[in-house]
C-alpha cells in the first residue's frame, strides 16, 4: 500500500493545480452572498428591471438560500456550446435560476493583429472572425475602408458582393440548422445541413479558391470575377436548396418532439431585446422588422425584392422559423442577382487601391513598381474614423476603423453580433429547464470566433 499512496496524493495535488489553472476568478459566477446586487439582477436575467420595477416573485424565487441551489459549470469544452463557450448555471433541481456566460477562450487578438496589417491584408484577418459567414465580415470591413477612402465600387462588384453574401447567409443558416438539429437529437438534420452547405462551399472554392476564410471581398471590389458558367452553378444551388428547405419542413417543422422542445421556450419581448442591443434573428423573432438590408440599405438591396421575416412570440421556434425562411429569401435574392447581374469591372479602376492588370506588369516597369508598392506598403487612407454596419446572418456587424493617414488602420474594432447577443443568455435561460439551455445556446447561434475575436 505504501507505494501507492504517493501517487494518489500527487494526482490530487495535480488535480488541484489544474483547477487553479483553469479558474477565471471574478469572471465566474459566485454564491449569492458574494455577488453584488446589480450583478445578481443581471445574472437573474432581470437587468431590465433596474429602473425601479421589482422582479416578479412568482416567476422565480429570487430570495432563495444558497444551500438549496447548486452552481454548475458547462464548457468550455462541451458538445452543445457551439465551440468554446462556457456557461455557469445556478440550478434549483432542474430549473435554471441564474446563468452567466464566461467567454474569451478563443480570444485571438485580432484587433491587435489588425493594427499590424495593411488595409490590403486586413481582409485575411477579419474573415477569420465569423468563420461561418466570412463574406459578411469582409464586406463590413471593406465598406468601412471604402467609406474612408471615399471611393465608389463598380456596379458589378456590388452585385457580386450581394450574391456572395446571400450565398454565405444560406450556408451559415444551413450550418445552424445542422447544429441545432444535432443539439435536439436530430442527427439526420446534421447530415443534411452540412450536405447542402457543401454545394455552396464548392462554388466558393471555384470562385475564391478556398472553402472558408475566402478573403474574396476586398476594399475596392472583389478579388476575382465570377468563374465562367457561374449562372448554372448558382442555379443548381438555388434549385436544390429551395427544394430541400421543404424537406426540412417535413423533417422538423411539423414534428411533435421538435416543436415541443422549441415552442414557447425562452421567449423575449421586443422591449427586452432592444434594451439588450440584440440584433438579427433574435430581434426579429420578437416582431421588430429590423433588417439592415431593408431599413438602412447598403449594396443594392434596395433594388431586389425580398421579405423581412419576423416572428411573433420571440421564442426558440420563431428563431428557427426565421432562419429557415431567411434561407428561402436568400434564394430569392440570389435568383434576382443571376438575372440582374450587370456587366463591367469587378473592382474599382482607381489606381490608388487597385493593382494594374497582370498583362501590364509584364511590359511596364512602372506597373510592376506600382504593384509591388501596393502589396508591400499598401495604400494610404485619409485621416478619419468611420463606423459601417451590415446585416450578417447573426445580426448587425459593424466595423469601426480609425485611420491616422497611414497604410495600416490605427484602430480596428468589429462590433460582433454574437458577442452582444450572448448577453441575452441570463434572460433567456431564467426559469427554464436544464435541457432548455441547450436550445437557448443553439438558437442564439453564437460563433465563438466572432465573440472573442
Amino acid at each position: 500500500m505504501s507505494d501507492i499512496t504517493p501517487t494518489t496524493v500527487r494526482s490530487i495535488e495535480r488535480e488541484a493545480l489544474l483547477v487553479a489553472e483553469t479558474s477565471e476568478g471574478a469572471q465566474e459566477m459566485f454564491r449569492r452572498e458574494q455577488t453584488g446586487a446589480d450583478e445578481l439582477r443581471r445574472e437573474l436575467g432581470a437587468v431590465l428591471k433596474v429602473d425601479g420595477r421589482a422582479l416578479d416573485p412568482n416567476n422565480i424565487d429570487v430570495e432563495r438560500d444558497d444551500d438549496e441551489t447548486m452552481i454548475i459549470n458547462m464548457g468550455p469544452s462541451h458538445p452543445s456550446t457551439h465551440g468554446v463557450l462556457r456557461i455557469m448555471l445556478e440550478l434549483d433541481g432542474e430549473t435554471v435560476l441564474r446563468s452567466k456566460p464566461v467567454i474569451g477562450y478563443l480570444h485571438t487578438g485580432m484587433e491587435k493583429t489588425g493594427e499590424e496589417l495593411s488595409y490590403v491584408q486586413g481582409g485575411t484577418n477579419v474573415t477569420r472572425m465569423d468563420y461561418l459567414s466570412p463574406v459578411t465580415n469582409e464586406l463590413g470591413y471593406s465598406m468601412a475602408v471604402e467609406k474612408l477612402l471615399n471611393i465608389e465600387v463598380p456596379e458589378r462588384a456590388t452585385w457580386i458582393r450581394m450574391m456572395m453574401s446571400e450565398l454565405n447567409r444560406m450556408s451559415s443558416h444551413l450550418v445552424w440548422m445542422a447544429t441545432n438539429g444535432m443539439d435536439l437529437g436530430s442527427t439526420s438534420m446534421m447530415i443534411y445541413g452540412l450536405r447542402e452547405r457543401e454545394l455552396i462551399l464548392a462554388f466558393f472554392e471555384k470562385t475564391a479558391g478556398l472553402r472558408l476564410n475566402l478573403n474574396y471581398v476586398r476594399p475596392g471590389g472583389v478579388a476575382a470575377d465570377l468563374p465562367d458558367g457561374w449562372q448554372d452553378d448558382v442555379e443548381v444551388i438555388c434549385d436544390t436548396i429551395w427544394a430541400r428547405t421543404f424537406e426540412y419542413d417535413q423533417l422538423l417543422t411539423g414534428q411533435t418532439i421538435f416543436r415541443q422542445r422549441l415552442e414557447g421556450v425562452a421567449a423575449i419581448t421586443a422591449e427586452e431585446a432592444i434594451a439588450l442591443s440584440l440584433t438579427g434573428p433574435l430581434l426579429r423573432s420578437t416582431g421588430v422588422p429590423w433588417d439592415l438590408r431593408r431599413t438602412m440599405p447598403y449594396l443594392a438591396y434596395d433594388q431586389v425584392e425580398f421579405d423581412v421575416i419576423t416572428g411573433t412570440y420571440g421564442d426558440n421556434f420563431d428563431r428557427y422559423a426565421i432562419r429557415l425562411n431567411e434561407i428561402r429569401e436568400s434564394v430569392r435574392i440570389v435568383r434576382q442577382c443571376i438575372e440582374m447581374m450587370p456587366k463591367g469591372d469587378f473592382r474599382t479602376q482607381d489606381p490608388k487601391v487597385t493593382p494594374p492588370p497582370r498583362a501590364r506588369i509584364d511590359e511596364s516597369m512602372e506597373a510592376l513598381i506600382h504593384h509591388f508598392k501596393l502589396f508591400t506598403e499598401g495604400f494610404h487612407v485619409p485621416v478619419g474614423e468611420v463606423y459601417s454596419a451590415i446585416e450578417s446572418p447573426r445580426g448587425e456587424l459593424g466595423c469601426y476603423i480609425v485611420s491616422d493617414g497611414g497604410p495600416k488602420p490605427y484602430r480596428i474594432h468589429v462590433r460582433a453580433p454574437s458577442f452582444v447577443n450572448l448577453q441575452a443568455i441570463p434572460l433567456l435561460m431564467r426559469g427554464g429547464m436544464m435541457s432548455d439551455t441547450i436550445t437557448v445556446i443553439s438558437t442564439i447561434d453564437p460563433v465563438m470566433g466572432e465573440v472573442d475575436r
Partner: protein
Amino acid sequence: MALEDLSHNFLTGSLEDLVKWARRASMWPASFGLACCAIEMMAAGAADFDLARFGMEVFRNSPRQADLMIVAGRVSQKMAPVLRQVYDQMMEPKWVLAMGVCASSGGMFNNYAIVQGVDQIVPVDVYAPGCPPSPETLMHAILTLHEKVRTGEITRRRDSGAGAALVTPESPWTPEVPTAVRLGTPK
C-alpha cells in the same frame, strides 16, 4: 497436436501486430473543436466526406472515451490549461492531431493571445496544414496517423518531439505540474 488434426483454419501472427491493428481500426476522436477548423472537422464527419469509412465518425464528447484529440483551431492562452486538462483526462494510449496552422504553429496570429503551436502544451503526433485544412487534408492526416499507429511500437509511443519530454523512464506518468502554464505576459 499435429496441424492435420485441426478442424478449423487459423493464422499465426504476433500479438503486437494484432493490438496495433485493433488500435488503428477503432480510433475514437474527442470532439475538441475550437474555431474555423472545427467546422471543417464537422464537414469531414458529415455525408460528403464521411469519416465513418475509417471507423471514426463517432466523436466522443467525454475525453475518457476518446483516443485521439483533434485540436481543431487556434488555442488561446485562456484555453491552454483547459486543453491540457482534457488531454490529461484521456486514457492511454492517446494521440493528438494538430489541425490547421493555428494549432500547429500559431499561424497568422503571432500575437499575445495565441499559443504558438499546441505542441507547447501537449505532444503532437500529426500536423495538418491549411487554414483551414480541407476535409481531404484532415483525412490524409488521419490516415498518416493510422499508418503511424500501425507501424509504431505499442509500448513506447514517442521517441522524439515534444512527447519525449513528458514520458521519460524516470517519470512514467505525466508530470504533476502541467506544462500548460500561462506563457507570461509579453513585453
